[in-house]
């Protein structure tokens, strides 16, 4: 599905990271792996340290902390927010929507639309597409897009497939109309036939959580996890990303009449450094143009990964400059999406801690 948006912009990104930092070495003892092999994996994948929340902390806690920072520093005003989009796979509850919980705790006005979207690694692209669509409405001028996940709660520490890369974070992106003639090109694709490649099998209505679903079982590779845990078929994800993402990037760039060299930064979702390097090589762009340092510093926080990438790697530079960027997210669903847009002259672009 192709989208084209006009006169829209991102005016700020705030990323909220938990203070708690876990080192890769901290988890080695839990893996059914030799230490030497684990250390080789660390080098190849770019694992190092990551941020995860303490027990009991929810995605909305990170989001509300960030929102309060923006309000207290007058970077946004409560009454200006027309739409609150909350993109996550770790809602506080099945019901009500977490966006409504955030709305209530912040005391936002009633003349607003709050929506939860269940999306993961492509959640920033999906969220931006939705935000831009809402901004086509006459009365909608500002959309707050919140990407927040605390999936570490659902990951088995004995699963070397997923535990070493999992991080938690929230990002708040202010999206607005602009009088400047901007053009944004985006495409997205879905493959629900492979929806089980990334999954939390139990805990929903199909397989409710019980004592049985919490029993740890060893898989063929020596990982231990239960049906209540997140499971990722890593080889399938790697193959899907390498097969589907490069042609999508080519396609979106072609739609945007933009050459690969004309893009200043390729700001992609970051599952691991290996995958990013392979993508850069396949697409045919310098690895330096595609930052791959988020997983090694903070972990992979699903939909918050791209905005964290933007906040960490471009920071205040983006408050004074503008860059032509290509964004891409890929993962659960399966979903893969890309966007070519100018990013710059932000009112804010920073990281704070919770």
């Amino acid at each position, binding site marked *: 599905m192709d989208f084209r948006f006009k006169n829209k912009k991102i005016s700020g990104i705030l990323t909220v990271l938990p203070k708690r930092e876990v080192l890769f070495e901290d988890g080695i003892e839990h893996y059914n792996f030799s230490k030497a092999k684990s250390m080789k994996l660390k080098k*190849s994948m770019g694992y190092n340290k990551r941020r995860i929340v303490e027990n009991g902390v929810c995605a909305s806690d990170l989001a509300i902390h960030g929102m309060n920072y923006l309000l207290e520093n007058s970077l946004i005003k409560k009454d200006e927010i027309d739409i609150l989009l909350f993109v996550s796979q770790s809602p506080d509850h099945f019901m009500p929507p977490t966006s409504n919980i955030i709305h209530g705790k912040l005391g936002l006005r009633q003349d607003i639309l709050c929506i939860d979207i269940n999306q993961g690694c492509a959640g920033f692209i999906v969220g931006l597409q939705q935000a831009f669509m809402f901004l086509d409405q006459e009365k909608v001028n500002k959309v707050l897009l919140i990407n927040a996940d605390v999936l570490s709660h659902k990951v088995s520490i004995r699963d070397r497939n997923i535990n070493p890369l999992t991080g938690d974070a929230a990002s708040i992106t202010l999206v607005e109309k602009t009088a400047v003639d901007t053009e944004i090109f985006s495409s997205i694709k879905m493959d629900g036939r492979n929806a089980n490649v990334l999954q939390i099998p139990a805990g929903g209505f199909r397989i409710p959580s019980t004592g049985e679903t919490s029993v740890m079982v060893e898989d063929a590779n020596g990982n231990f996890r239960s049906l209540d845990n997140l499971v990722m078929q890593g080889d399938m994800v790697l*193959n899907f990303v390498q097969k589907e993402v490069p042609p999508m990037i080519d396609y979106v760039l072609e739609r945007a009449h933009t050459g690969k060299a004309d893009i200043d930064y390729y700001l992609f979702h970051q599952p691991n450094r290996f995958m990013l390097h392979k*993508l850069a090589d396949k697409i045919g762009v310098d690895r330096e143009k595609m930052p791959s340092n988020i997983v090694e510093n903070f972990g992979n926080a699903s939909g918050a990964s791209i905005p964290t990438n933007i906040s960490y790697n471009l920071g205040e530079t983006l408050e004074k400059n503008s860059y032509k960027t290509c964004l891409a997210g890929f993962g659960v669903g399966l979903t893969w999406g890309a966007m070519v847009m100018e990013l710059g002259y932000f009112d804010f672009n920073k990281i704070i801690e919770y």
Partner: protein
Amino acid sequence: MKKIIVNNMENKVLKILTDIHPEFDFNQVANFIEEGLIDSFDMVNLVTTLDEEFGVSIDGVDVIPDNFISVDAIVLLLKKKGVK
């Protein structure tokens, strides 16, 4: 049956495999994947090392078990990337 390694590229691949798993004799095994000598994480480590050693970038779509079942299969993969 023990395979006799004569080719330089084969020797280099064999050395890389042995560095990753010194406990295995890769000359003695017909299918590294089926016999459990190489798993998906080994493939990632192997690709990273092969890229560095041979100055190539093996395509991500080629990081599949079929390409890592034997020294011959790995050599074929390298030849596909232009290694001689």
